């Protein structure tokens, strides 16, 4: 009859054990948050983490099982876990395979709004000075189609791009014909305040499958205060535009973004209700960016990361309760971070990647033909800082732009994988480099992370999401769904 051995016969001796790379952070007097190479989290006590580091653990003691399942330890002769980690890391980083999928065309800098937090726009009627020319647009298209992505997205930016609608039409038609010849798929987005939306624009969007992206900051008084225009009716025009676009193009073909100003801080529930009322399926709770007029008009200094986090947490609470009451509704930034935390899907979102998305994630073609590594980069240029200006459509091609020293330096200087503070951060797997932000706030692409409001917000959000996942099963069930795992 069979000779079966007891479980102890199958355990590795301690000299066969090896540590795998992991990050950790103290979260309490006795508590540590630990993450493995691909960002799976577990919580350990101080005693446990010390025993782990000394490899003083053995099968059956509970710690061995936790540490092994979380890929913190392995058998020194084993290969399975290392291969698994390699495969998962490869999947997580595979956004790098799609090089420069996003191309932003600033078809005009003119705008009929005069928002104090705006980074770039001009109130002007001088078309020749602030509109992109057709020649510039064609050159920009040449460059966009040189990028290696199998599918590119062209986003029309401004100013208010609908003020130069004729150029949009020219670009879309030219892109379509190039797409046919080169076999590269193209998607289009227009970032517009919708004030100038009319039937002609809607018909064109429908015919060309163009997505609309707009701004909605909250209830009428808040929105109109944030976004002044002659007539003081920005809110009314935006809401009417969203409704019209939903009807003409379909509910999923128009999205809205909000920007948090000091006046928004106490009003997150009302802001969310505006989005809900319009039948939108979620909201992106977005802090102000430290660029352009936002700095000049001192908007950016009006609140700190701490008050923004309070705003975010209150908003998330409200959104989760909306879900508990049966209406599916998401906070999109949390959804992005949760997707990174709970799955190995490649997420190329520009603020959440390292290597950073500047240039290799997106290129911006300004109205005057200058090319920038990111939208924020061209905003810096408007205040005289050309650090992220990579070249000009007339002198450069895709290769010279993306291989420019300026871009390579900024990307390599800011890698979270080796940056001080980032390289050992428990959240590194889920965060991003954001060199333009740190250049704008601290004068260099790398940045001193303990002084970074970006870092403070990222850590605050991730700590909060983890706490909800660990401690609130009802909320966790909703949050897991957002991860689209």
């Amino acid at each position, binding site marked *: 009859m069979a000779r079966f051995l*007891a479980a102890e*016969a199958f355990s*590795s001796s301690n000299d066969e054990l090896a540590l795998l790379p992991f990050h950790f952070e103290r979260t309490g007097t006795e508590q540590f948050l630990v993450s493995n190479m691909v960002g799976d989290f577990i919580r350990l006590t101080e005693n446990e983490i010390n025993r782990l580091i000394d490899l003083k653990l053995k099968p059956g003691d509970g710690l061995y099982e936790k540490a092994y399942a979380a890929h913190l330890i392995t058998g020194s002769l084993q290969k*399975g*876990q290392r291969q698994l980690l390699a495969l998962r890391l490869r999947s997580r980083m595979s956004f790098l395979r799609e090089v420069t999928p996003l191309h932003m065309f600033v078809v005009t800098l003119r705008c009929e709004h005069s928002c104090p937090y705006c980074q770039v726009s001009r109130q002007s009627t001088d078309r020749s000075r602030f509109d992109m020319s057709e020649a510039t647009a064609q050159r920009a298209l040449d460059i966009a189609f040189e990028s290696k992505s199998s599918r590119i997205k062209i986003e029309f930016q401004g100013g208010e791009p609908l003020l130069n609608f004729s150029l949009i039409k020219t670009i879309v038609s030219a892109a379509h014909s190039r797409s046919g010849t080169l076999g590269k798929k193209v998607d289009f987005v227009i970032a517009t305040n919708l004030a100038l939306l009319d039937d002609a624009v809607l018909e064109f969007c429908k015919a060309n499958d163009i997505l609309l992206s707009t701004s909605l900051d909250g209830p009428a008084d808040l929105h109109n205060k944030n976004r002044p225009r002659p007539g003081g009716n920005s809110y009314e025009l935006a809401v009417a535009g969203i409704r019209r676009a939903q009807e003409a193009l379909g509910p999923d073909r128009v999205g809205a973004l909000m920007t948090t100003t000091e006046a928004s801080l106490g009003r997150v529930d009302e802001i969310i209700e505006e989005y809900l009322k319009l039948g939108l399926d979620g909201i992106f709770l977005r802090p102000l960016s430290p660029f352009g007029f936002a700095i000049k008009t001192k908007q950016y200094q009006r609140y700190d990361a701490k008050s923004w986090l309070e705003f975010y947490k209150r908003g998330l609470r409200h959104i989760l309760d909306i879900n508990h009451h049966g209406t599916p509704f998401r906070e999109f930034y949390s959804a992005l971070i949760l997707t990174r935390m709970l*799955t*190995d899907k490649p997420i190329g979102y520009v603020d959440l990647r390292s290597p950073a998305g500047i240039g290799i994630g997106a290129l911006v073609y300004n109205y005057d033909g200058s090319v920038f590594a990111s939208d924020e980069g061209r905003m810096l240029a408007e205040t005289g800082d050309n650090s992220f200006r990579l070249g000009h459509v007339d002198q450069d091609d895709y290769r010279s732009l993306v291989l420019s020293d300026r871009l390579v330096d900024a990307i390599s200087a800011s890698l979270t994988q080796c940056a001080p503070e980032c390289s050992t951060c428990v959240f590194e797997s889920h965060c991003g480099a954001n060199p333009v932000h740190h250049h704008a706030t601290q004068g260099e692409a790398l940045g001193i992370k303990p002084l970074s409001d970006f870092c403070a917000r990222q850590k605050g959000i991730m700590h909060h999401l983890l706490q909800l996942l660990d401690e609130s099963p009802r909320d966790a069930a909703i949050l897991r769904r957002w991860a689209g*795992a």
Partner: protein
Amino acid sequence: MTLSLFGTAALCRGLEEQTRSVVRLKTVDTEVSNAEADFTIVRTSDDLKRAIQNDHKSIFAIDDGTGRFLSLEDLQRRTIAVPAQFSYLDAGDVIGIHTQSGKFRTLYRHNSRHNSFLVTERCNNYCLMCSQPPKDIDDRWILNEIRQSLPLLDKHTRTLTFTGGEPLSDWADFISILADCRDQLPKTAVQVLTNGRAFAKSEIVDAWRKVNHPSVIAAIPVYAAVDYVHDYVVQAKGAFDETILGILKLKDRGQRVEVRVVLHAQTARIISDTCRWLARNLPFVDHVALMGLENTGFAIANDAQLWIDPIDYQTDLAEAVDLLVAANVNVSVYNLQRCVLAPSVWPHAVQSISDWKNAFVAECEPCTEKTRCAGFFSSGRPRRSKAISPIL
């Protein structure tokens, strides 16, 4: 009820040239076949008369229970005669017979959804709960028998399972059988129950991929997220590492993989941990099957280590299923009765027990879920949960 799938023929004549033969059955009403393997079923003396009149060359006589309805001794034909408990055999079925001893096994039943070929009894695992305890014997003749059987099977057969032992014990021979399946049964989905360790070798996984079978799936057990727990269950040190490596190499080459977890006291209490690990690390497998224990083979000998009442892991199993569903992993629960499963698990509970060993108990009669329930194994020494009761 449990069907007998092997026995001894009372008579086996005219096949002496070979040590073993593979035989396909047909009815007396069909045309006379010249195929070497075809035998005509006779159940009554009438059948026999007609078979003789129509000049059927090979006779497969099934006892009608009296044991003497036929006088087969005088027939100048190839003849096999089997006892009455094999009356379930019918046209299209295939048996393999050892011609000298008359020992035979039912290899394929045309009417069944659960046809499986045992490939070998050898295995490099020695699982605590093995339903087919491995033997270290030279049984390579089985591969030949399978090779002979495949051309005899109905081309419309939906699924075929290869099991063991470890089917990849003689991996090159087995993979050539997979190629035969591809050529002769292109519409048949093939499932191979393997411990997956062989796939840790790139040479083997490359050969598997090269067959390019249109629908083969490797069903591979993973019993825990922790090496020694899995190794203990399969009684082989290093098995976990090889199995995980094997799964990764199969998926890396675009092959289909099912992960199987047999639920018993060593695996059921940690099933939510195991599934959390699967959801996070192997969400790309094609299917996960969480399987109630069949109390037979080694499971009986190791009852003290293995028995756990399924009702005592009901909550853990529900959580495990939920974790896999949340990660978009396709999950099924096999072999467990609906009355021991949380209702949230019901949509994943499958009627998985092979027809020849599937049964219900008296309590099931009034149950409204019976027609959707997996029921019980009738094989081995069935153990029942204390929670078995009709859902009304």
